[in-house]
C-alpha cells in the first residue's frame, strides 16, 4: 500500500525533480547502450549543442518561447479543472490570424517603421485567432457538457485541414510550388534578438530567436498574477478544485471555464508570432510541429506553475535543439532518440513523479528518528 508521503517543500520541489530527471537519463542511457550509441558522448553533445554556445542557447530559447505559450495554454485550463489538448489547433489559427494581418495591413504599410503599428495588431490577431478556436469547444462544454478532450482534439484536425485548404487555395503564393504564403513584408517581422542586441553593441549570432521571447516572459508573469493574485484566478482555481464549493461561493463555474479556455487559446495563438512573425516570415502548413502537445508535457513537468513552465520550456527547448545538433553530427543518431528521452522525462517527472517519495520519506524518517 503506498500512501502519500509528507515531504518538506525543498525536497518535493527541489530534490525530487532532479532525482526524476536523473532516473530518466539513466533509463535513456540504457536504451542508448542497447542501440549501440555511447551514452556519455550523446549526453555531452546534447548538452553542448543546447547550452554550449551562444547560438545553441539562442536556438534553445527560441524553441522554449513556443513551449512557454503552449505550456501556459494547458496550465490555465488545468487550473479550471480542464484538460486543453487543443493547443495545436489554437496555435495554427493564431498563426493564421497574424498572417492575415501581415498580408493585408502589412502590405499596405510596408515600411520598416510601420512595424510599431503592424506587430501589435498581429499579436492581437494571433490571440484572437487562438481564442476563437478555443471558444467553440468552450461553449460546447458550457452549454452541452461536451467532452473537452474530444472537442479540442477534433478541432486540431479541423484547424489543420482549414490551414491546408487556405494554403493550397486563396493564400498560396502565386507561382510557387510550396504550400505557403508569400513572405511577410518587413513591417510584419518580429525583430530578431541579434538585431536588437546589435544596437546595444552586443555581438550575437544570427538565429530565429526574436523579441517574442519577451512576450512569452510577460505572458508567464501575467498568468502568474492572474492565477495567484487576482479574484478571477482565485475563482477559477476554486472552480477547478470543486465546482460545488464554487457555486456555494456565488461563482458561476461555466463562465470561468469558458474564460480560462479563451485565455488558453489566446496564449497558444501567440505561437504564431514566434514561429511566423519571428522566424519563418510566412505562413506555412506545419509550423506548429507538435508544440501544442509538447505544451502538455511542459505544463505537467512545470506543475502548472508559470515559473515551472518557463524552466520546463527551457529543458524541452534544450532537448529539441541538442537533439537537432546530435542528429546532424552523430551518425546513426536519429531524432527519435530525443523523443524517447522526452517521453522518459515526462514519464518520470509526470506520471511517476512520486515514485521516489516513499524512499525519501523513509530516509527522512530514519534521519529524524536518529535525531530524536
Amino acid at each position, binding site marked *: *500500500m503506498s*500512501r502519500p508521503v*509528507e515531504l518538506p517543500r525543498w525536497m518535493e520541489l527541489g530534490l525530487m525533480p532532479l532525482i526524476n530527471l536523473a532516473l530518466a537519463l539513466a533509463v535513456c542511457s540504457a536504451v542508448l547502450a542497447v542501440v549501440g550509441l555511447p551514452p556519455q558522448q550523446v549526453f555531452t553533445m546534447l548538452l553542448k549543442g543546447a547550452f554550449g554556445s551562444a547560438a545553441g542557447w539562442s536556438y534553445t530559447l527560441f524553441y522554449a518561447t513556443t513551449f512557454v505559450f503552449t505550456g501556459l495554454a494547458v496550465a490555465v485550463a488545468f487550473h479550471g479543472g480542464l484538460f486543453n489538448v487543443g493547443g495545436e489547433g489554437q496555435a495554427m489559427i493564431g498563426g493564421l490570424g497574424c498572417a492575415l494581418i501581415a498580408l493585408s495591413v502589412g502590405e499596405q504599410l510596408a515600411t520598416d517603421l510601420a512595424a510599431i503599428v503592424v506587430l501589435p495588431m498581429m499579436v492581437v490577431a494571433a490571440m484572437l485567432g487562438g481564442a476563437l478556436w478555443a471558444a467553440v469547444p468552450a461553449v460546447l462544454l458550457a452549454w452541452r457538457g461536451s467532452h473537452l478532450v474530444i472537442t479540442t482534439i477534433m478541432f486540431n484536425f479541423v484547424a489543420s485541414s482549414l490551414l491546408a485548404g487556405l494554403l493550397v487555395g486563396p493564400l498560396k503564393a502565386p507561382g510557387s510550388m510550396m504550400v505557403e504564403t508569400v513572405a511577410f513584408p518587413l513591417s510584419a517581422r518580429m525583430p530578431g534578438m541579434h538585431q536588437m542586441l546589435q544596437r546595444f553593441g552586443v555581438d550575437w549570432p544570427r538565429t530565429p530567436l526574436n523579441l517574442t521571447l519577451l512576450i512569452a516572459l510577460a505572458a508567464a508573469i501575467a498568468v502568474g498574477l492572474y492565477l495567484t*493574485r*487576482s*479574484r*478571477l484566478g*482565485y*475563482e477559477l*482555481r*476554486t472552480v477547478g*478544485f*470543486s465546482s*460545488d*464549493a464554487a*457555486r*456555494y*461561493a*456565488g461563482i458561476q463555474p461555466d463562465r470561468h471555464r469558458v474564460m480560462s479556455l479563451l485565455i488558453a487559446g489566446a496564449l497558444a495563438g501567440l505561437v504564431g508570432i514566434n514561429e511566423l512573425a519571428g522566424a519563418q516570415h510566412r505562413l506555412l502548413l506545419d509550423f506548429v510541429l507538435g508544440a501544442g502537445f509538447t505544451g502538455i508535457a511542459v505544463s505537467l513537468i512545470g506543475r502548472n506553475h508559470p515559473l515551472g513552465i518557463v524552466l520546463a520550456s527551457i529543458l524541452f527547448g534544450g532537448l529539441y535543439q541538442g537533439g537537432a545538433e546530435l542528429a546532424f553530427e552523430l551518425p546513426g543518431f536519429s531524432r527519435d532518440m530525443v523523443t524517447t528521452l522526452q517521453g522518459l522525462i515526462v514519464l518520470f517527472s509526470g506520471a511517476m513523479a512520486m515514485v521516489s517519495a516513499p524512499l525519501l520519506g523513509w530516509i527522512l*524518517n530514519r534521519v*529524524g*528518528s536518529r535525531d530524536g
Partner: protein
Amino acid sequence: MHQAVSAVQLRSISKRFGAIHANREVTLSVTAGSIHGLVGENGAGKSTLMAILYGLVQADRGTIAIHGKTVAINNSRTAIALGIGMVHQHFLLIDSMSALDNVLLGAEPHWRLQRSRAIVLEQLKVLIQQTGLEVDLMRPVGELTVGARQRLEILKALLRGASVLILDEPTAVLTPSEAEQLFVTLRQLRARGTTILVITHKLKEVMALCDAVTVLRAGQVVFDGPIAQCSLDQLAQAMVGRRVQLQRPDVLRTTRKGSVSLAVRDLSWRDPQGTQRVSGVTFDLYAGEIVGIAGVAGNGQSELLALLSGMLKPQSGQVDFRGTIWNSARWLDPTTARRLGLAHVPEDRHRFGVVLPLPLWESALLGYQRSRRFATAWGWVRRRAARSAAQVMLERYDVRPAQLDLQTSTLSGGNQQKLILAREALAPEHVPEVLLVGQPTRGVDIGAIELIYDRLRAMRDGGTAVLLVSSELDEILALADRVLVMNQGVIVGELANEDCSEAALGRLMAGVSSRTQVGVEAAL
C-alpha cells in the same frame, strides 16, 4: 485485564508522522465477542490505530496479536485473511453496480460471473437470515438508503470471513432510526460471536452499545475499562481533558423577539425529476432567535437551506429580506445574499464549505472574494487584508493548527467547521443579519461542538437570526428557541423549546409519515 480470550490485542503501538505522535504506546485489548468502543476527539489517533490494525499503515513500534497469536499485518489483504473487516466512514461502494455485484467485486469465487453471482447470492441469503442485515441485493447501490449501504458494507466484511469488525463512525451518516436499527444488528452480530470495534465520538452511543471502552487523547490511552464502571461525564472528561457542558441550558432564555429578519412565504421547489421537495413553506425568522428545523433527513430541510442561500431557485413563493421581496422572477444569488448579510454554513462541509486543496486563508475567503475589503476595484485580491482577516478567524474560533498557509484538507473536521463558522460569522461587511446553519456539528468532536454552540448562541444574542437544520434532536433542543418540524417538504408543526420533548418532536417528525433519504444529494 480481561484474561478471557482477546480477539485483538495491541501492545505498545507507537506511530509517528513527522513530528506528530499519532499513537504513543497504545495498548488495547478487545474481548472476543464483545462490542468495544474506541473514542476520542478528532485527531486523537483513533483512525491511525485502526489503520494500523487493518494494515493500511505500519506501526513504528509495538505488536499486534489476533486471537492470542502475534501477527504482522503489512497490508489489508493480510488483515482480511486474519478475519478483520473494516467498514469505512465513507463507503467504498460502486453506485452503478448492484448490491450483489459490490459484494462480489474482488472476491469472485468462480471464474464465470454468473456462477459467482449464484454462489455469493446463496451465501448472502443465509447470512442475511442469520444476521438480519436486510439489503435489496439486486438494486444498484446508488438507489439504496445510506443505512442499507452500511448494512451492505457489513455484509461484505462478514462474507469475507470477518470475525473482528471495525466500524468507523458508523452513525455519522445515519438518521436516528437507522442508527437504532444498526445497534440492534450489531448486538445480534455480537450474539453470533463477532467482535466489534466501534470508532466514534458520540458518547451516548458508546454507553448504549458497548461492553467496554477505550478513550484516546493525543495518541495515548487515557481511559480503558468496562462500560459498567464508567459514566458519560467521566468519558467526556477523559476525552477532552476537562469538564464539558453540553446539556440544555438550565435557565431557558426567554425569547426576546426582535423584528422579522427573514419572512418566507409559500416557498416551493421541485427537483429536476419532478418530485416536490419543498412545498408551501411559510415562516418568519426574527432577529435574535434560533429556529431549529427538525425532521428525518431527506424531508426537504437541505433543499430549504439551499433555496434560502440562493444556491437553488424556487418555482414559486417569495422571501422578504432586508426590505426587498425576492421571488422566482428575481431570486437571491449567493453573492447578493452574502452582501446583504445572509451567511450560510452549508450542511456538506467538504463539498460546499471549503476547498480542501487551498490554503486556509484562501478557504477563509470563499464566498467573500468579491467583497471590497478583500478585492480591489480592479479585481486584485487584497492578500494582506484577507490574510489578516483569516488570522483573526483562526484565533477567535480556536482553529488549530492556526497556520494560514496550511492546506485546508489537513484540518480535522471540527477545525474545518470552526473555520467555516468563523468565516460566515465574521463576514467582512457587517455582522450577518441571518445565519443559515446546516448540521453544524456533524462529524465534529466534543470540544469543537462546545465552541460552535457557544458561538451560535453568542450570535443570536448579538441579534442575528439563526436558522438551524440538524438531524440531531439533542442539538436542536440545546440551541433552538423555537422548533419547526418538516416532513415531506412541508412544515408540519411548530413548538417552543419549552414544549419540546423528544417524544413530541418524534411524533411530529414521523407522525404524518416518514420517508427514506433518497435524492437529497441528487437534488443539490
